[in-house]
């Protein structure tokens, strides 16, 4: 293929080769002589569990890290990246899992952030805005340049990130777990965009652990495990089972055994509750649900239909304007978080790092976040460090949370292990009621399987679980009954065994049978 000069004058990126990459961190060999190559027009998926080394590998390509050994070749020429600036100059852009956008600024301002203005002391944002409009037409990415980031839905924010990268002349885009926060519809839109980009000659690297997405979007797949490349192959002909086995090194459970449990008494009774949303109006308009001992009630729905507000009401962080919540016979409608914990509820929050844990605290400290004031973890006002450590140690072993020590700051652990710790913390209290909000979001396949098994185990022992999840597969795999929420109302509650995907999809879109 002949060289094409891109808009800002650099040679178009046709091919990237990473040869013999080694990257070490204290105590860990994150990349062990990894070879990786990708060509223009490819959508190349990088598959692997958390800690497999895929993010680490891509961060070296983007200039965030430097390889300890090995080299990176762009169009056949060896390049050294000292910072993302160098990578961007070579035509590489990266879209991170956690967006790097400033919520209080507009789309245009965010795209312009960090770039030099063409005028001396003044901004030239109209120029930026015009180019954004051009790019969004060129690639079919619907964006309003004047909108503020905080006004945008997650899928729209991701589009801003993509435009940011394209604006800086990215030929190669690295997307890190891009679908972790998207609704099914937004995922479809994203995939359309990616296909379009690949067709006009962009190169795309897609980091993921979601097998079915990888199979549907990619043209080539490379699987990493424990820092090494396990295999690299064209997508055509690959199966979920074979890929899963490559990722984990053992066969993965495809479907869970859900033995029938006789549902017991009603443990959580949500009666016709209303609550205000952050932007005026009601987020919940008369929601009624009941969860019984020994059952999992799955709450399905597209993101943004009131699930977050419902979880916050149940957690005691959002006031219920009208209606009642009865927990194990106690009226907890106005109860504080502490009172709900005391009444036998455990809560796994949606945003684990913001709401569920303190990332600078150690693993042991996080383990006792809710119970640090109670015996045996404390005697009077003095913490019983021995008791805390020994309990934390046994629970961490039981739940297979991988951490170098009990004193490791939580932020050093992988997302999956953090979630397992939070799960371990909440379940070790043997709650009568468990509210789990997006429990496996952003968590790798091994940890997800583990969490699902523990949730089913809790169900066996009689816990009443409300599972709020945007992952329909997860809902269908675990729930006994499924409720669908749409615009703050419950569209319907059905038995899992008696409902089809189509029926659920219709309810999620707001269509009732009437």
């Amino acid at each position, binding site marked *: 293929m002949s060289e094409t000069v891109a808009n800002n004058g650099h040679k178009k990126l046709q091919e990237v080769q990473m040869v013999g990459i080694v990257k070490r961190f204290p105590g860990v060999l994150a990349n062990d002589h990894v070879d990786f190559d990708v060509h223009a027009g490819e959508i190349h998926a990088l598959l692997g569990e958390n800690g497999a080394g895929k993010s680490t590998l891509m961060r070296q390509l983007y200039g965030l890290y430097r390889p300890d050994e090995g080299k990176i070749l762009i169009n056949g020429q060896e390049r050294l990246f000292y910072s993302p600036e160098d990578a961007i100059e070579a035509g590489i852009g990266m879209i991170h899992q956690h967006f790097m956008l400033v919520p209080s600024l507009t789309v245009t301002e965010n795209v312009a952030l960090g770039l030099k203005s063409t005028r001396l002391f003044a901004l030239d944002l109209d120029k930026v805005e015009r180019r954004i409009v051009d790019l969004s037409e060129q690639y079919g990415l619907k964006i309003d340049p004047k909108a503020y980031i905080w006004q945008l839905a997650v899928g729209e924010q991701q589009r801003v990130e993509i435009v940011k990268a394209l604006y800086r002349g990215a030929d190669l885009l690295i997307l890190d777990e891009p679908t972790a926060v998207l609704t099914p519809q937004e995922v479809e839109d994203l995939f359309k965009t990616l296909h379009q980009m690949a067709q006009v000659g962009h190169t795309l690297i897609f980091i993921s652990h979601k097998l079915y997405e990888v199979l549907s979007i990619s043209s080539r797949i490379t699987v990493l495990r424990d820092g090494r490349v396990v295999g690299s192959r064209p997508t055509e002909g690959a199966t979920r089972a074979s890929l899963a086995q490559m990722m984990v090194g053992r066969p993965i459970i495809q479907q869970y055994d859900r033995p029938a449990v006789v549902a017991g008494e009603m443990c959580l009774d949500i009666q016709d509750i209303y609550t205000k949303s952050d932007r005026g109006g009601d987020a919940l308009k008369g929601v009624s649900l009941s969860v019984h001992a020994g059952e999992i009630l799955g709450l399905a729905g597209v993101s943004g239909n009131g699930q977050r507000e419902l979880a916050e009401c149940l957690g005691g962080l959002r006031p219920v304007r009208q209606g009642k919540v009865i927990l194990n016979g106690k009226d907890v409608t106005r109860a504080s978080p502490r009172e709900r914990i005391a009444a036998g509820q455990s809560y796994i929050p949606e945003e684990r790092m913001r709401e569920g844990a303190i990332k600078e*605290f150690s693993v042991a400290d996080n383990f006792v976040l809710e119970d640090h004031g109670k015996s045996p973890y404390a005697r009077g006002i003095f913490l019983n460090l021995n008791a805390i450590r020994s309990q934390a140690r046994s629970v961490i072993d039981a739940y297979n949370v991988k951490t170098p020590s009990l004193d490791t700051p939580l932020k050093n652990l992988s997302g999956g292990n953090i979630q397992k710790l939070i799960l371990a913390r909440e379940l070790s209290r043997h709650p009568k009621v468990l509210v789990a909000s997006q429990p496996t979001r952003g968590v790798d396949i091994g940890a997800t399987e583990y969490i699902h098994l523990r949730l089913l185990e809790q169900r066996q022992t009689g816990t009443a679980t409300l599972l709020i999840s945007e992952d329909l597969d997860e809902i269908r795999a675990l729930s006994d009954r499924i409720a669908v929420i749409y615009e703050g109302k419950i569209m319907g509650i059905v038995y899992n065994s008696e409902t089809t995907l189509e029926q659920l999809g219709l309810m999620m879109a707001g269509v009732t049978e009437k």
Partner: protein
Amino acid sequence: MDRPANHRVLNRFFEKPGFKRLANQTIEALLPLASVPLALIIGAFMLLALNVNPLTAYGALINGVFGSTFGLTQTLVDATPLLLVGLGVVIAFRGGVLNIGGEGQITVGALAASAAALTLNQWPAYALIPTCLIAGALAGAVWGGIPGFLKARLGVNEILSTIMMNSIAQQFSLYLLTGPMLDPSEKAAGTSIAQSALLPKASWLPTLVPQTLLNAGTILAVVLAIFVYVFMWRTTIGYRIRAVGLNPDASRYAGINVRLYQMLALTLGGLFAGIAGAVQVMGVQRRMMDGLSGGYGFTGIVVALFGQLHPLGAIPASILFGGLLVGSDQMQRTTQVPSAIVDVLLGMIVLFVVSSVIWSRYRARRRQTHV
């Protein structure tokens, strides 16, 4: 987000107790000390511009600290209020509240201690000293507690409220010292310098080294530093203060009363500054004077930050700054440089040290990982 230290680790490291981490932090804290000489070099050029021989000046600085028993002890004397204020700052900042009210809290602490001493002047030392210290602590606690309450109840920004409380304290002190608390002997002599009567001997903190100002207050400060360490890392209350400071959302979810602990953090911040005031008035000045707080309320913040916001780290940090204060005093006397130059020098040292910390963290980040 890949984190390096997870399932690839085959061996489990030893559980590191909290003070091994402190040892690592101490090394990190000593590195910035190396930038102190650099600041002094720049300062040398400034001194030359003022026709002062920098060698003489710095010689005087070092001599001031190390050249005599008085210099050495005075370093500790000046370090004491810095350490005490610093301890309060450690608690407050770790609780996520920015206590800038040290000056006012020192002042009211000193006022309360001297008022108690002057009123209860018949009491024996073993009763009077603790009483005065407690009075100072309580006054400081109230002075920190009011902004704390305003923040908890009304969301008032504590930076603004604590600074305003400084002004109120200063003026109130001036009023008392030129009025009801004015030294009777001053009144008789007709000079009306703003100071109180000499405090009864029973309230004086015992001097440790004769012919110096080094007093038992220094020992008290060190003991309190250890106490703060235990409090913050070994009690439920300290745990909650730290949690609230790091992540109020998660703390709320976990059932911690965030506002209460923020208020408590500010109150404790004031309490320690109040003790600083009491110690100054009972151990050093032995009478209440205008301006007793002497900038310790602000310098104490720098000391706490230098000590990595750790109570045991504040000890060497306070000694460093105590030494700089003593040395610069001597430097000023010897070379007659204007006192402002001393402030410039101290300011530059702070600037250089903070820059070196940021620089070394930037270097480490380039080599290794991002958070």
